[in-house]
């Protein structure tokens, strides 16, 4: 009998081995969302004794917002270079050329020792569409200009998505997510850039490219109201508490707070208002809990996933 009990005990321990593995939450978040923090050279141009290096996060230009760092090495120290300009141009299959939101005039940062800038690529490079960077600067009273074809890749991190639309004022706007790259189940500081295309007053003149044809600016004093929701039918239009609308800060970007209650697909529903509080784009979304029904999105939204 003792033997029987002994074997029974062994049997108990045998069946006690774990049944379902616990979710490795940390690893799961890491695989869904990669995070880049290192600037590497994404393009370089050598021209007339100068070497221009354009750095971007991870050394790759992605669709959406890209912070860039321009470094020029040559006979002149960077401090003495002036009128440094940066212009991305896309050429489509028909040969028409447009640009995208970017900082045109770059100013040297003596602390950082580079020319900081940004560019919001509106599409990926493809066989029909090619991106080219036009850079010019003045050194020793002489103007240099250079151009370089680049490749813009798909942004796989949906947390850095962008959208483009025409507002009720007839202007073309761009909203690009800047941060967080890697959201958490927490209150996340949500950073976005809002840009506008300045329609040219006159036809192109002078040598290509004429910057007046490709003028984009950060919009000032706008407001971006935020309502994050989980759009999947199973999530029943689930939302989160303690979100804050986005408002502009000194660096020109718009800052708010988004609270993600769980991992999964989220939609950031926006309403964009101009300086006068007039709605330029976006609609209120229903707040009802509607299980089994796909969440209604605002006419202005960006989908994210983490």
């Amino acid at each position, binding site marked *: 009998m003792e033997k029987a009990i002994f074997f029974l005990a062994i049997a108990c321990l045998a069946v006690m081995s774990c049944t379902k593995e616990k979710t490795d939450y940390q690893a799961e978040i890491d695989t869904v969302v990669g995070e880049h923090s290192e600037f590497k050279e994404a393009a370089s141009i050598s021209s007339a004794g100068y070497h221009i290096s354009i750095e971007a996060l991870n050394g790759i230009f992605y669709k959406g917002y890209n912070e860039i760092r321009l470094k020029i090495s040559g006979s002149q120290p960077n401090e003495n270079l002036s009128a440094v300009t940066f212009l991305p141009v896309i050429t489509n299959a028909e040969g028409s050329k447009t640009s995208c939101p970017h900082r045109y005039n770059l100013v040297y940062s003596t602390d950082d020792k580079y020319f900081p800038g940004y560019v919001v690529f509106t599409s990926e490079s493809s066989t029909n569409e090619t991106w080219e960077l036009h850079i010019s600067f003045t050194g020793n009273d002489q103007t240099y200009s250079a151009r370089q074809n680049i490749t813009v890749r798909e942004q796989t991190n949906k947390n850095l998505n962008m959208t483009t639309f025409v507002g009720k004022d007839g202007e073309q706007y761009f909203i690009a997510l800047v941060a967080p790259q890697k959201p*958490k189940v927490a209150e996340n500081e949500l950073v976005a850039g809002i840009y506008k295309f300045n329609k040219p007053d006159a036809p192109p003149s002078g040598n290509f490219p004429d910057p007046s044809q490709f003028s984009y600016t950060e919009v000032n004093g706008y407001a971006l109201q935020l309502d994050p929701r989980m759009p999947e039918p199973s999530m029943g239009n689930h939302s989160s508490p303690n979100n804050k609308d986005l408002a502009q800060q000194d660096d020109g970007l718009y800052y708010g707070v988004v609270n993600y209650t769980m991992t999964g697909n989220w939609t950031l529903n926006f309403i964009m208002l101009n300086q006068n509080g007039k709605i330029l784009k976006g609609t209120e979304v229903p707040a009802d809990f509607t299980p089994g029904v796909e969440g209604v999105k605002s006419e202005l939204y960006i989908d994210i996933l983490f």
Partner: protein
Amino acid sequence: MKQLSIIFCILFLGIKANAQQAQEEKDSTQVLEEVTIVAKAKKKIETDMKMAVSVDDYLASSDNISFIKRGAYAWEPLLNNMSTERSSITIDGMHVFGACTDKMDPITSYVESNNLSTIDIKSGQEGSLHGATVAGSIDLKRKSTPFSLEKKYSGAYQTGFEFNNQQLFNLGNLSYSNDKFVADGSISFRKAGNYYDGNNEEVKHSQYNKFNTSLGLAYKTSPLSAVRVDAIFDKAKNVGFPALPMDLWLSRAIITSASYKQLFEEGFIRVWDTKLYFNAVEHYMDDTRRPENLVHMDMPGWSTTYGLVSRVNIKHGDYASEIQLNVYDNLSIAEMTMYPQDRSKKTMFAYSWPWVTTRFASLAMNNSLDFSEKSRLNFGGSLGYNYNHSRYAEFNRIFHPGTPQEKSRILPGLHASYQLSVRQFDFSVGAGYGHRAPSVSEGYGYYIYNSFDRYDYIGNPDLKNEISYEANASAGFKNERMGVEAKVNYFHIQNYIIGRILNLGSPMNYQSVGVKGYTSLNHASIFNIALNTRYDILQHLHWKGTLTYARATDDKKGNLPFIRPLSYQTSLHFMHKRMGVQTSLNGDFAQRNYSPEYGEDQTPAYMILNISANYTFSIKNCKTVLQVGAENVLNEYYSTYADWGNIPRMGRNIFTSLKFSF
């Protein structure tokens, strides 16, 4: 001398460990008397009506226990009309915590009636010996056979069938003992289908399967000391919860302990008993059997506990004391993963218990001082330290921004009571004061769906300690033929923790209508009264009756939920030679003080009649009992105030059972 030590050892393994009785001993001859008392006091896990009861049925026969029922299995015991967070539920003093966020696995579901000897229920702060509590304590005492001079085998086998839900059960236990070694083993299987309500309609998803086995081995290391190892393994599979939107696919628990016990012949200290324990519980819900669920959510939970219990009994003259040190570390994890219909891709993930560690240590003592043979003062207290740590505190910070990852609490408790016996009358008055820490769900729960009020619940790590002030009294009269006893208790609870609607929250679970956060009411009060009577009408005809009433209000004089309305139990028991016949009537009056605010509706009155008969005979040396009976004879269609989602209870159920013991 040798005899004395044997007596001591019998005492020591008489599991009873009833300090107050053990302390009455004055010399060795009285020790022997004490042993016989222990044997008599050892109640069997069976009710008057039914000898093959589940642990839940057995608990239900106690007048201060009521149940929240989510189906036919794993009922949540309410002590003094307070939910399980407020009571300390232990197995031989060991803390075990369920792994289900929806309380589908109270600790009582991880044991079986054939591995328990008795259940020790203490009301209020008197139960603080095992840990901080408000409502009291329920200690499930395991079976353990004493050492014997000669080799001895004993055992029992019980089988039965219940017709309503086609329940078949087989329970067996076997013990071996000699003067150095004891082994106890038990095994049980229960399998039940869906039950039928009083309208003879099938209550879908009410089936269950349970397997339970236990083993205990004791070895006498010296005439006054022994070591013992114990293990319980329990597995429930395919358990339906008709009141919930999901079922249980599998739950398993392994509950182990190793203890060392030392007895002392001289000095103040009589017994020193130390036990190390470990238990692990895993619980996996399953909602794929419900066609109404368009989405599926996996909600596995795990709970692992390590602990130490060390107890010393002291006796000096008229003073006796029991001092206990409790230490445990528990890790509770629960996950939610949601899938759309095709299940190919998950749509969300979150922790409903974000890896919450609870560490608790307490030093508690119960003392009794006999002023005379007629009067006694009991007093005691405990001082506990409770520490919580949430590994993924970001989930808690969604609703409570900036809340710390760790939280420590000091949990004091005090109680005193005075007992007086005057001729055939007994009186007692007592008072208590105690704190409790919020449970893991109350503190750290995240989107825990409560299908009763259909809200998602969010824990609050910053909740204050719940503080209970309690008063109790009892009066009784008894003679040979009759006994009457009335017991009342009143709890005034500050910072009473309960879920309140959070307007800023957005629901997440499929059936949910909103979000509630655990908050503290300024105070709440709970009043319980029970009246027990017994009368021996004839030598072989006994009558018993119980009447209970409770009233509980929040700080705005609103009703609290899950408070039992006026209810009664009355039974007649007739014995003649080898025959016994019992009949009982129990029911609740209409629930008048219900709480719509907390999701309750009014439950009408009901009355249930039960009848059973048993016949005892011997086959060789084997005592055999055959029992046949019927519960809910009138096939009443009813649900009680605490039936989750008003699911109907079982209709007429004819049960049979056969027990052999040797």
